[in-house]
């Protein structure tokens, strides 16, 4: 398993794709943080502590989208290019390949979360300082926010791996996940109000503390999102066990 994990990490680091995705995330976060800090209504928040600054909200929600895409691409890239064949010839135990990808993508997702959160903090703090704000923060609260983002990002990366394996087609998997978040999850929530907060998007929001009203407690939300990640991995893994790789 150690060899497979090392191989998966080498896959991530030996093309520019994962770096470009990370650069895109950092750029989007930097731009949004700067715009939020620069917006007029910010003057009321200018002296609020960092952990209550609205410019942190966007990175908290967008980072998991990027790690989910990273996760989806882990398998779909291999199906698209046919490199799944040499991968499976080297590691015929398909569950082991899945496990290695889950570990590697989760680890990369941690990096994504740290970069995104750090970028938002840095850009936002500089913006506040430029406007003459009084910078203050609670180290514990900021670290907790970052930690929650790390956990949510890693779990969404893992969900992406399972979904990518189950669907195999890259665009279909990504579009499907967006449709899920934007349409299916809100429709389900409206039809069956009791389940809404247990759905993956809501659980992810609960972990990072965005729109916290009506959501699960962060600790319970981690367990719920981990459950979704496990479900995605089991479904993808079961389909993969039976499938022919042509």
């Amino acid at each position, binding site marked *: 398993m150690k060899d497979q994990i090392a191989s998966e990490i080498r*896959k991530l680091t*030996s093309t*520019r794709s994962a770096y470009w995705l990370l650069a895109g995330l950092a750029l989007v976060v930097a731009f949004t943080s700067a715009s939020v800090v620069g917006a007029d209504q910010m003057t009321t928040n200018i002296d609020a502590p960092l952990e209550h600054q609205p410019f942190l909200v966007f990175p908290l929600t967008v980072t998991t989208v990027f790690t989910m895409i990273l996760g989806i691409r882990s398998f779909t890239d291999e199906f698209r*290019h*046919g490199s799944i064949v040499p*991968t499976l010839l080297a590691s015929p135990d398909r569950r082991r390949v899945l496990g290695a990808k889950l570990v590697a993508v989760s680890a990369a997702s941690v990096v994504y979360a740290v970069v995104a959160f750090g970028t938002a903090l840095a850009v936002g703090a500089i913006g506040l300082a430029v406007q003459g704000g009084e910078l203050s923060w609670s180290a514990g609260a900021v670290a907790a926010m970052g930690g929650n983002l790390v956990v949510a990002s890693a779990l969404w990366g893992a969900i992406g791996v399972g979904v990518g394996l189950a669907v195999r087609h890259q665009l279909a998997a990504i579009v499907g996940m967006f449709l899920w978040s934007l349409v299916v999850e809100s429709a389900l929530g409206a039809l069956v109000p009791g389940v809404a907060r247990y759905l993956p998007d809501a659980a992810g929001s609960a972990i990072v503390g965005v729109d916290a009203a009506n959501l699960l407690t962060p600790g319970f939300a981690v367990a719920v999102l981990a459950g979704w990640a496990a479900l995605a991995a089991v479904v993808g893994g079961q389909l993969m066990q039976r499938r*022919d790789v042509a």
Partner: protein
Amino acid sequence: MQTRTIGTATEGRAPLGSPAIAVRGVTKRFGDVAAVEDLGFEVRPGVVTGFLGPNGAGKSTTLRIVLGLVHPDEGSATVLGLPYASLPEPTRTVGAVLETQSFNPLRSGRNHLRVLATASGLPSARVDEVLELVGLSGAARRRAGKYSLGMRQRLGLAGALLGDPRVLILDEPANGLDPQGIRWLRDFLRGFAADGNAVLVSSHLLSEMAQLADEVIVINRGRLVKQAPVHELANGSRTLEDAFFELTEEFPEEGAR
């Protein structure tokens, strides 16, 4: 492919058990269509075995079943007595090339091989050895997507040789190779087999196969038609091509007229 020496350490290894590859009663249906039907054959070590059949005869499906990529509906396929998925060290046992395009085009040839070497616990030094062996050292750091067809074949072959295997399974390996490359491949495979290893190679190039293979397996419509030494099929004025068409009845009507 300058190097003629075979970078394998097969001399002095224990002889391979026979058969190296065994396919027994394999049937595989895709929907209603049987791609392979009750197919059985054995591949011995020490010889090059050619795998022939018209397009759609089931060659690729069969090779994929041997490699554990496709699950047969019935029957079994083993390499050195074990199903591929049960081999303790698959890369050190079997090397395979199935398609020319089976790598991420954005990854360099060298990194593609390093990914595979890492997965099999092989040292990076082995990557440079196989690159040298197939004559790709000069292009190793270029993106594999920019490789010519022949270079892609060489990259695939390099990947198959990474683990210094005892069995080679190659699907159309000569495709895209220049005459020197084809000659190098032929010499390499013959030397590899002469060292007591097993080679199963499919090809459409019947004249090439006549020079390369000691023995051929001919299948048609998913069934075994013939397994015989090449000299038995092609002798005198009768070529392997003649034998192939007789066996597979590719153009029976035209032959009758």
